[in-house]
Each structure stands twice: as structure tokens, then as C-alpha cells.
């Protein structure tokens, strides 16, 4: 596939689980990059050619919604698709994420099938 994905989550465990689920879903990325919060995520996007971002919402320092707001202000990275992966799947929060440019949402707990169903159309 030759693509790069960035996983933004404050939980090291969850980043590992998402990485494993991508492989189990048959989504064979060339490189999986990681960031511990939105601020780190922006830095990674600024330094790498990333094709897709998977982001948590509820994180310290800079959460997923603020990450979307900041990314939308940067012409160099605002076109990169973001999918939210979160327990916060209440309609108000996901609605806000979608209005800020998110392309989809995956609820924790998730299966590799759910990951594939949401992400494959974006690649």
C-alpha cells in the first residue's frame, strides 16, 4: 500500500492495540507513527508525509477536538483525513468532531472489522 498512518492516543497500550488491529484488518501500512496527544500529533504531521490519522478525543494537553481545530488552520496538513477512535461516541461530541473535519468515528471497544469498514474507503 505504501502509506503512512499516525495514531494519536495518550495510552501507549491503546496505540499498540490500534496498530495490531490495523494489521489484523489487512490494512498494511508502510509505517505506523505514534503521538501521545494532539500537540505531538501536529508535530508529527509537520515532519512527515502522513496519509491518515486515527485520533483519540479525551487526551491531556491537547485533546482530539482541539487537534482538529489546530490542524484545520494549517494549509499544509488540513487535507489529511482524520478518524476518531474513542469511548466518547455520544452524538454531540462526534457531531462536533465531524463539523471540525473528522471523516469518521470508531467506538472503543472495536473489532478489526470495524476498523477496516471505516478506514478502507479513505485510502
Amino acid at each position, binding site marked *: 500500500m505504501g502509506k503512512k498512518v499516525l495514531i494519536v492516543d495518550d495510552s501507549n*497500550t491503546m496505540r499498540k492495540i490500534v496498530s495490531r488491529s490495523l494489521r489484523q484488518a489487512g490494512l498494511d501500512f508502510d509505517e505506523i507513527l505514534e503521538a501521545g496527544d494532539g500537540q505531538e500529533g501536529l508535530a508529527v504531521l509537520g515532519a512527515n508525509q502522513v496519509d491518515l490519522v486515527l485520533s483519540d478525543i479525551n487526551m491531556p494537553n491537547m485533546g482530539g477536538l482541539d487537534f482538529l481545530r489546530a490542524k484545520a488552520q494549517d494549509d499544509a496538513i488540513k487535507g489529511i483525513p482524520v478518524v476518531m477512535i*474513542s*469511548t466518547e461516541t455520544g452524538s*454531540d461530541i462526534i457531531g462536533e468532531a465531524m463539523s471540525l473535519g473528522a471523516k469518521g468515528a470508531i467506538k472503543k471497544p472495536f473489532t478489526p472489522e470495524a476498523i477496516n469498514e471505516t478506514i478502507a474507503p479513505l485510502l
Partner: protein
Amino acid sequence: MSMAEQIITATEEIFSTMIMLEATPGEPGAPPKGPFRNSVTGMVGMAGQVRGLLAIHLTEEAAKSVTGSFLGMDVAEIDDDVRDAIGELANMLAGSIKMMLTDNGKDIKLSIPSAISGAEYTIDNLAEAESTSVPFTLPAGTFTVELQLEHPAG
């Protein structure tokens, strides 16, 4: 749905979807008083329309088993990875239960999850809270999921 049923539904969904271990629920009862010994506890606070606390208390053996299944690797000791995994487990439980408490979880905010472990520790309960806990049995040990709500809805 009662608080105990909410705990059981959320726990079984997470264990069958992401952890791939069979967690058998026991009889619901009052939350464990502690002190907790050789255990790991993950916690998430709830604020807003419903205020409360979701906690999961695991024996060390159960915590290592759950983390190992979660990550697909052998886990030999209680370390940052185990505490992080148990915190994330508490986060998913709180997220699922939040959706059952109000309309799609509206007007409830979750805290960043935290986790502690140790040879002996206690955890203070919320004052004025309605509390329920459900014990579960795994092949490798036991754990208890505890829910405290100050203003339960529905």
C-alpha cells in the same frame, strides 16, 4: 437497566470484543471496602448531569492476564504497560456505561483514566453515592467492577 446490569453488559461487550477472555459475572453486591492487596485498580470519574466513579479492581494475576490478551503478548510483571492497559479498560467501561446513563451519554464528561497498583492500598468512596459492584471470574483470577453514582438517571 439496573446499575449491575449496566456493568455486566459493558464488561461482557469489552471482554468479548477486544480482550478475548471469558469473564463470568457473579452476584452483584456492595463495593469492596479494601484495603486492596496485590492488586491493580483503574478508575475514571464522571462529571456533568451524572457524577460518579467507575473503578475496576483486579488481582495481579488477572491484571497480567487481561493485559497479555489485550496486547497479544506475555506479561510477566506489573509495570507501566499493565497500569496503562487497566486504565484504558476502565475508560472503555466508563464510556459504555455513560451511553446507558443518559441519552447517548449526553452531558456526561469522563476524566482521563488513572490506575494504581501495590501490595496494599485503599480507595475513598464518593460521599452520598449509590454504589454497586459486580465480581467477575477469569481463568487466571478475579476482578470487580464498581460503579458509584451521585445522581443516577433512569
